[in-house]
């Protein structure tokens, strides 16, 4: 039982950055924009959230309390991810550039952004690496919720994670309600399915595309910050995102554009990425590490073979909308 609880905990912790990335990209794709820059936006969020806390602590020479550090990190990671998405939106929505290429360039830019500032700011740190204080780091450790955390089995299984895990799940729930139960959510889906129809119904297509893409990018940025704050323990590690953004893009397909299924997808892929510690199977470690990627490929193949109307992507995903060329 303990092994299972440990395994489940590790899977949730490994799956959470994927959940952020998946939810962010899902919202983006609902507007019809296919932003392949998730990896880049996660890098931007990772360094910005970390650097904001680092620079404030360095500049004012104090140790930040955990709660404040969490708020600041979320804010700056969100802003950085949204900035990357804003560049994407300006190019794609206003300048009508090819979406795949623009997203790829955003990835290159974002990786450069993260690694550059990670290395550059590290020079000002006493230990030559961007790190946050132990006090600030406490904000990102597992919570202890009175009563709930103490329930046997269920407590350690569900109620002892760090606060970002619950934030991600909260975003998933809010997004599911927003998309399916609100007028704005319906409008957004209309923009992704058929911008010309939405436009004719006097929905501001441009505004919806910009907002959904930028908020989505911000959520991806928080996913990146999760990596720099929790996975690498509040210190900058060169190239730390390592493909999580790309798996997130694939997970949107796995989740068939539904926030609730994104929860399941992120958990499964989180489990795949840590499984080798719990279930050795006698396969070489390096081969085991490719399982999430092979699983992604299988998901792509299976979803493409059995295409159903209900589980299909937004109608005009990846296609730019030109009002003048309707």
């Amino acid at each position, binding site marked *: 039982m303990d092994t299972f609880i440990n395994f489940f905990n590790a899977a949730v912790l490994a799956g959470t950055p994927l959940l952020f990335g998946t939810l962010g990209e899902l919202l983006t794709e609902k507007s019809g924009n296919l932003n*392949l820059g998730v990896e880049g936006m996660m890098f931007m969020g990772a360094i910005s959230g970390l650097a904001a806390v680092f620079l404030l602590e360095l500049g004012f020479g104090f140790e930040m309390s955990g709660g404040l550090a969490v708020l600041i990190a979320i804010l700056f990671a969100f802003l950085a991810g949204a900035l990357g998405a804003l*560049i994407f939106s300006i*190019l794609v929505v206003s*300048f*009508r*550039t*090819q979406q*795949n*290429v*623009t997203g*790829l*360039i*955003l*990835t*290159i*830019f*974002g*990786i*450069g*952004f993260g*690694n*550059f500032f*990670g*290395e*550059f700011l590290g*020079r000002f740190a006493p230990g030559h690496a961007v790190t946050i204080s132990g006090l600030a780091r406490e904000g990102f450790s597992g919570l202890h919720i009175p009563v709930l955390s103490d329930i046997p089995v269920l407590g350690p299984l569900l109620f002892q994670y760090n606060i970002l895990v619950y934030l991600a799940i909260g975003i998933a729930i809010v997004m599911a309600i927003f998309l399916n139960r609100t007028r704005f959510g319906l409008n957004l889906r209309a923009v992704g399915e058929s911008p010309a129809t939405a436009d004719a119904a006097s929905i501001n297509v441009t505004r919806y595309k910009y907002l959904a893409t930028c908020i989505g990018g911000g959520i991806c940025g928080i996913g990146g910050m999760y990596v720099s704050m929790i996975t690498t323990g509040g210190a900058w590690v060169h190239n730390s995102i390592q*493909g999580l953004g*790309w798996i997130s*893009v*694939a997970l949107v*397909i796995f989740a068939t554009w539904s926030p609730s299924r994104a929860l399941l997808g992120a958990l499964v892929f989180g489990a795949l990425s840590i499984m080798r510690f719990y279930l050795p199977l006698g396969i*070489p*470690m*390096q*081969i085991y*590490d*490719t399982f999430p*990627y*092979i699983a*992604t*490929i299988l998901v*792509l*193949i299976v979803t*493409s*073979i059995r295409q159903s109307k209900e589980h299909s992507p937004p109608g005009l995903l990846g296609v730019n909308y030109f009002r*003048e*060329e309707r």
Partner: protein
Amino acid sequence: MSRQSVSNINEPRVPFLRIARRHATPRRQAWLIRTVGLLAALFTGSLLILALGHNPIAVYLDMVDSAFGSRIGFNETVRIAVPLLGSALAVGLAFKMKFWNIGTEGHILIGGIAATYFALFHYDTLPVPVLLTVMGLAGAAAGGLWGLIPAFFRAKWNTNETLFTLMLNYVAFGFILFLQAGPWRRAGTDFPIIPMFEQAARLPRLFGIHIGWLLILSLTVLVYLYLNRSKQGYQLTVVGQSENTARYAGMNVGRIIMRTMLFSGAIAGFVGFIQVSGANFTLDETTAGGVGFTGITVAWLAHLNPLIMVLVAMFIAMLERGATRIQTTFMIPDAIASLLIGIILFFMLACEFFIHYRLVIRNRKGGH
């Protein structure tokens, strides 16, 4: 009063700024726009350098000098440009067909693995020219087959090729790590290192640089001719323009997709051979080192024209070479290369908008 408001309703509202398609932009004007775009990108980059407390002009000049200022620098720039150009050619073939292949990185690795197999285990059984030829062919064949996998699924079930090709990169990468750690590890070491190639398995030099530069330049001409002068090149261009048109014209779209990806992967696999045999003399996890991705930007900046790719590859190589130099002279981290490349590409993308569209500002009288 009421009359005026009625006429306001009937008259269509002309937005302050609207966008109109240009039907033909003269070439000179297009190049002028691109030049302005490049300058704007360099200006933006210089703001960043300025913020770091350095003189942007000095930094840029140092970058150019490191790349072209000396014989050694120039050779080094060419060495960086060779795999970039090669992967741009591979990417270009696929992109011309609007097949969004971002798996070139993996094709290079797989090609490198195949070539390395012969370099490690057959270097003393084959004469040198035969050995090198076999290595090159093995690299191309392996890369081609690796490229065929996603093409098959795309042709048959329209499986998303962007993510498929990308995921295969990680599989190839894991396979190299596995070979390093186990089967191909150098005897007598605990480090995961594959042995250096024997002299026989190394590419000869020409004018001080491994002969890969000549091979890739020849390949560039071949790809140019293939795209512009062959029936197959025409077919893949039509598929890229519209798959339906190609189908109505009686083309077997699935076959064209698979054939093109076979070639695209083969070119990249051949680049893998050049990297292991010419540049590094061994196989490791940095054999591709991101050129598969940078190659995408080279191809796109060159408008998928193989001849222009030569210039763009040299330009990007200059940036990367220069970034290494300014890391030591100005203490600027070399990751600035990706930042600058990203900024330049953002601006170049935006340029295309101004080449294809013009902004019309509302006339005072409300007409157009």
